[in-house]
């Protein structure tokens, strides 16, 4: 009989932690430790997720989440593209970076949802307003992280490429290799931020078609529909964890050097 590998052991502990949290929730709900108006039981939440809406006009939680995720992924993908290009340019040109740093830091400090009412008016309350709020909120983070990665790349490796007269497209490839870990770090940081912005901006102003987990949870909360609120929280949380796991796996497969977490620890 062989001992479980570290990955299986870690996975087992991870699942055990989730089960423990679920048990704690179940006990709290069953013993009325917290009022059912706020915390419904796991069974009620499961019913909400499995059987769908209880009233006419409501949509299934999954449908609401799908609408939110569509906008979130569009904004996030655009953020990665814009952030990569601008970050590399800024990191490669010290003076331009210094010039842009003030405005970027300012934009990063402004809660993006504050910009949402303005963008909503400009973009006529269409989905683009939600997507652009994500882009405006996340791009400064992405740009600053990628610029730091570009500027902080090894001078020796850069000098080697110059000494060996390596062709331009290979130098670009090498620059991407240098930036790679920072790109993943930026992507992970902005993924969670994009999800938060997507949900909160729906809570501020519902979308035109009304589809979105933010507005759905807000309405359910007003109607004291705790199972629906918690079902929404559970699904968004699960999506966030899944996204993080996928990015973590991609980072390890593609980069093979340091994970974002390692880099944060080093910093």
């Amino acid at each position, binding site marked *: 009989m062989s001992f479980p590998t570290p990955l299986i052991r870690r996975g087992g502990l991870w699942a055990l932690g989730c089960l423990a949290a679920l048990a704690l929730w179940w006990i709290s709900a069953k013993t009325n430790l917290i009022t059912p108006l706020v915390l419904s039981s796991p069974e009620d939440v499961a019913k909400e997720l499995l059987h769908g809406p209880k009233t006419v006009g409501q949509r299934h939680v999954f449908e609401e989440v799908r609408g939110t995720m569509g906008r979130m992924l569009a904004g996030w993908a655009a953020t990665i593209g814009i952030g990569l290009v601008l970050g590399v340019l800024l990191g490669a040109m010290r003076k331009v970076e210094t010039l842009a740093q003030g405005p970027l830091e300012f934009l990063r400090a402004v809660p993006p949802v504050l910009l949402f009412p303005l963008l909503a008016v400009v973009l006529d309350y269409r989905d683009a307003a939600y997507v652009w709020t994500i882009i405006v909120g996340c791009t400064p983070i992405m740009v600053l992280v990628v610029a730091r990665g570009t500027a902080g790349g090894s001078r*020796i*490796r850069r*000098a080697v490429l110059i*000494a*060996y007269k390596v062709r331009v497209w*290979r130098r670009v490839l090498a620059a991407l290799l240098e930036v790679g870990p920072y790109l993943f770090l930026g992507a992970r940081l902005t993924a969670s931020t994009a999800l938060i912005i997507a949900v909160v901006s729906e809570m501020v102003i519902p979308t035109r078609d009304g589809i979105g987990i933010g507005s759905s949870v807000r309405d359910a909360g007003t109607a004291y529909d705790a199972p629906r609120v918690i079902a929404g929280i559970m699904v968004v949380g699960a999506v966030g964890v899944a996204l993080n796991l996928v990015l973590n796996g991609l980072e390890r497969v593609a980069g093979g050097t340091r994970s974002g977490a390692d880099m944060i620890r080093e910093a």
Partner: protein
Amino acid sequence: MRLDGLSCSYRSDRRDLVVVFRDVSITLTPGRLLGVFGPNGCGKSSLLRTVLAAVPSEPVGWIPQEFQESLFPALSLNGNLALVVASDGTGRSDPKQPSGSVGTSPVERVRLALGIEIDLSSKPRACSIGMLQQAAILRALASRSRFLLADEPFSALDANVSQRIYRGMRSIVQTEQRSALIVSHDLLSLRAVCDEVLVIPGRPFSTTRRSGMAHAVIVPVHRPTGSSGADGDPEASFLHLAQNVLEST
């Protein structure tokens, strides 16, 4: 190739101009290995980097002192070699050789010549320091650039590996008529691999004192011809000469 008027200076933390050396000339001869020896801080690495910057626009096989940092951590050693060897325009396999035959690629050929036995599919983080240095040497020689500039290229190698690499490096430089400049603080290594050694005397340079580059002397390396002991003890005489230069200021 002769490089004249080489100068090196920099601003210190207190913004003082520190002149490391001025108007130095270096001749790099095809098929010959020139060593540079001197005490710590005498400007050996500065000289090498100045030469690196002064070499005309063609690829240079450079082995930096920071060889560990010179390899891309996300690529395997093979990937690191491919990044340079296939891109310099001179490092491709001989087109006359049948493709796929053993030892035809520049990397494989140099690897065999140097007797390097490292696993090139490994990522740098999985390699020892010695393996990384061997990879950096392999990269420089497999690139088939006309110039080889090496800064402390044997610092992390054990005696057995060093001996193999000395022989391989000499053989490649001589047969392929490359010009090599090797900087080291290990006189015996330089004697083993070089044809002549530039010995820089004096103490480390500072804001008030230039390096002893102006008083540097080229000491030739004589190797036994194999016939008899008529040459005396070449190693002892070489070390004696070098020692005299070192203590000349």
